Every structure is written in C-alpha cells, then in structure tokens.
C-alpha cells in the first residue's frame, strides 16, 4: 500500500507537517481559525519526534498486523482489507485509550474535547496527505511500500 515515509536526514524539525495536518483536519480549513477560534480544537495526527540532532515526523504506520485494531474495545478501529488502511470510526470510539497503550509508534493522539482518539487517515480525498504536500524539505514521501 501507499504509505507516508519519513526521511530523517532531510527533516529540519520545523513542525510545518503538524501545522498543515491540523488545518487539513479542521472544519474551517483556515489556518488562523483552526489555531485560534475553532472548537473543538482540531488535532494534528502527525508528531515531530526530536532528539537533537535527530528529527523526523511520525504518524500512523497503518501496520500490517495492527495492534490497535486487535486491542480496540469497541470495533472503532478496523483494517481495510482492500486498501490496507487502518481506519478509525469516531462514532464508535469510546475514548478508552486502549489503542494508545498498544501503539508502538505513539502515533495515536487524544482528542480530549471530543473524548475520542485522532490518528492519520492519509488525508482521504486529497491528492496527497497534507504533511507530505507541505513539507518544505521533502522529508516526507507518500509512496508504495511493502506492507
């Protein structure tokens, strides 16, 4: 499947991936409103992992054997058998945080206002995920990888 891949050597740790992820997952799609006034607050599903001089961005890896799917208490987390995408249905989510407990990447975020989790959905509907499209140094790629 097509996944987002981080190139550590190209990452400057600027955080624009987080900004654009937040905007892409906001209602208004407006950077000012998304950050200043929109409620519930939109959540970035990508995180900069920084331990200087190392930095890279991480988001849901859409694992082959996704531990979050097995652990999910409510059936909110599923693996799409066709696309391989790990999908989250927030209407089914009870915000128990069990998926967070078992995600080895720490890639699942708490949406505290909505009391559900938030994670990368590969920006369904966009040509390319927002973090990839807006990375100024091409440190993120969206490409076909083995599982």
């Amino acid at each position, binding site marked *: 499947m097509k996944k987002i891949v981080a*190139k550590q050597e190209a990452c400057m740790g600027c955080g624009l991936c987080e900004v654009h992820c937040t905007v892409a997952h906001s209602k208004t799609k407006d950077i000012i409103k998304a950050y200043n006034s929109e409620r519930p607050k939109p959540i970035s599903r990508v995180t900069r992992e920084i*331990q200087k001089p*190392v930095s890279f961005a991480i988001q849901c890896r859409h694992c082959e054997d996704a531990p979050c799917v097995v652990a999910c208490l409510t*059936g909110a987390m599923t693996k799409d058998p066709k696309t391989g995408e790990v999908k989250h249905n927030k209407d089914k989510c009870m915000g128990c945080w069990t998926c*967070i*407990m078992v995600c080895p990447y*720490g890639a699942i975020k708490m949406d505290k206002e909505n009391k559900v989790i938030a994670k990368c959905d590969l920006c369904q509907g966009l040509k390319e995920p927002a973090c990839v499209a807006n990375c100024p140094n091409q440190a993120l790629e969206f490409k076909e990888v083995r599982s």
Partner: protein
Amino acid sequence: MAKYVIVGASAAGIGAVEAIREIDTAGTITVISDEACPQYSRPMISDYVSGKADFNKMKCRDDEFWKQLKAEAITGKKATALNLTEKTVTLESGEKVPYEKLLLATGGKPFVPKMEGQEKDGVFTFTTITDAQRIAAKIDAIKAKSAVVIGAGLIGLSVTEALTKRGLKVTMVELQDKILSLLLDPQASEMVEGAVKAAGVNIVTGQSVQKIIGKHDNDAAVGGVILTKGDTVQCDLVIVAIGVIPRTELVAGAAIKINRGIIVDNTMQTNVPDVYASGDVAEAYDFVLGQNRLLPLWPLAMQEGHVAGHNMAGQKSTYEGGTNMSSLKYFGIPIVSIGLANPKDDPTVEVLVKSDFERKVYKKLVLRNNVIVGMTMVNCIERAGVIFYLLKNGINIKKFKDQLLVDSFCLATLPASLQKKMNVVQ
C-alpha cells in the same frame, strides 16, 4: 470440510471466527451464545448506563457480521453440556451440535460473595448489557438517588462514574486499603481517588459490606448496606463489582483440566485434542510473570481467540502472551498501567519515578536487569505505547535509561538500530 463450534461470542469468540475465516473459507462455523446479540463491547456498558451510548453504538461488529463470515449464530440459547467422546455440545433445548474443533470462549461471570440480603430488589452485577439495561431501567423506575458499589477495581470504577454522571450519589466500598489496588501503586491510586472524590463520590476502603438491608416501607427493596465495622450507608441500589471468575460450568466433570480457569498451551489448546479455550475462561500466558494465569481483559481475549482460530483451522500459531495491562479514562484521568507496576518488596527490581504534582503527571517504570517489566503513566499517556513496545520486546534500555521519563522522550530518543528495526524512518 471442518466443523467448528464456538461457545461464547464476545471478544474471544469474535476473534476466533475472524481468524478461522482468514484460513478456511469453506468449513462450517457454529457460534453459540446465551445473549441475544453478543457482538457488542462489554467495556462499553458503563456508557450505556451513563446515557452516552445506546446499544447500537455498542455493537463492535455489524449486524450482518456472522452472516458475512458465513457463521451460523445460535443466539439467546445456552450450551448446557459437553460430550468429548461423541464430540457434541448440547443446547438447553436438548439439541446437539456436533463439532470437529471446539472453542470454549464462555468468558467470566461476576463473583458475588454470600451476603445477607443479596436477594433484595435493587442488587445488581455489572458484566453484560442485560445488567446495564436492568440498572438503567431501575434507576428510572424508582428514581434512584444513591448507590453503593462494592469493589473499586476497573468495573467498580466504571460503574461508579456512570452512576455519578446520571446524578446518583455513589459510595464505593473496597476491601483493600486503596482503590484500583490490582493495577496501581498507592501514589497513582491516590491521584485517581482525588478525582473520584472531587466528583462527589464517597470512598470507603478497608471494609466490605456485611449485610444489605431493606427500605423502611419495603423490606424487599434495597434501602442500604451495613459495612463490616457496623456503619450503615443508605442507598437505593447495590452494584456488586468485585471481579469476574471463569465460567467453567460447561466443562465441569469433563476431562478438560481446570485450575482456576481452563488450562491451555501456547496454541490455546486444552489437554483434550481439538478442544481450545480463550478469553476470560482460560488461563493464558503472562509474558511478564512467565506463567499462565487468569487475565480477564478484552484485548487479550481477542488475541487469544485469534490464535485459537488459526490453530483450529490448521495454521500453526503461538500466543505471544499478554500481561496485566489496562488503560483508564475514568473521572478525566487518563492512565496506562502495565505489568509489574506495583512490585512489593522485590529486591530484583529497580524503580524509576517522576512526578509533577502541579500538572498531576506521574510516571513510573519498573526495571529488572535493565529491561522494563512494569509501567504506570498518569496524565501523560500518548507515548505509553512506545514504552510498552520496549517492555513487550524485552529491549535492554541501559543506554537510554535516563531519557525514558523526561518529557521529551519520543521515538527519536531510541537508538538508531531500534528505530530501524521498528521501521520508523527510511
């Protein structure tokens, strides 16, 4: 064409059916459950009582789930007998269901100790949707204003929160000195206790209920409880939430070995060939303790069901094990606690702790020979899964031990070799 029969259709049963169908699309699967619609999330029953979720939201698989996986679901019927020689399961109707491969996924049932007055109207357990529906209906019918919850573990805490959200005044009664004592150390427990009390809940520890008493005008209805030391707490409802014990009635007297739960090997097979057990009824492997034991937790039941299903369908699969692990959301305090989080007088372990009272953050790691064997994270759980990965895989953390509890800990903190192994970067 193999004939698979699965008794029990909650997490372990669901996991098994899904796993069997990954391998065998032709064999017949029969699932037997005494519940009318078993494919719902039992951990969500507290949301039903609080009013946050209706039954539809609680369904963890579609209405068409069994049909889609070509499994015959016999629901609302109890399996009453097992014949290992003729390989059949008998239903309460007398009908016999023959099997070639059998999975016992009968789950757990609430443990209710003998108490005077326990037959009174208004005493409930809290395990199934039926329990939740009865409690919700009772609250409406008698306009219940107060409840006593016996047991302050996960189930007790979840029902306490639900009842509190519905406006009831709740008293939790716990025999141990601290709430959540099987999961948390005293410090983490006190943090939760503070939030529970702040929500108006009364907590009584070091005591139990010796007697349930009736109302002045109606002795058959719950009016209160008398605690071990003699105090009376008035209430309209009593919820017994002490814990669950394996539902082993079906195998009683059969040749299947039982300790506290059904004993299984690492393929989830019992001592009887072609008979498997998974979920709350089975004693499965705990990789932290290095032994099998009861661990009645939904995600583990699902995993165990998967392993059983694969093996039943002929694909060798071994259970990697689980451990005592829970994430909590109650009373607004997110917590993850895993493994040996509260070791007592154990000279072989090293404990790392970092607490920040202002932010109400508490982190604790328990190490043995530089391998994490236990962890608790309070109010800072988003990277708990990374630590759990290190715990589960027995990674030696000596080189980055001092980094594990700092706020900036993340995947980038890990050695490059480990990052590569985890496939986090290109």
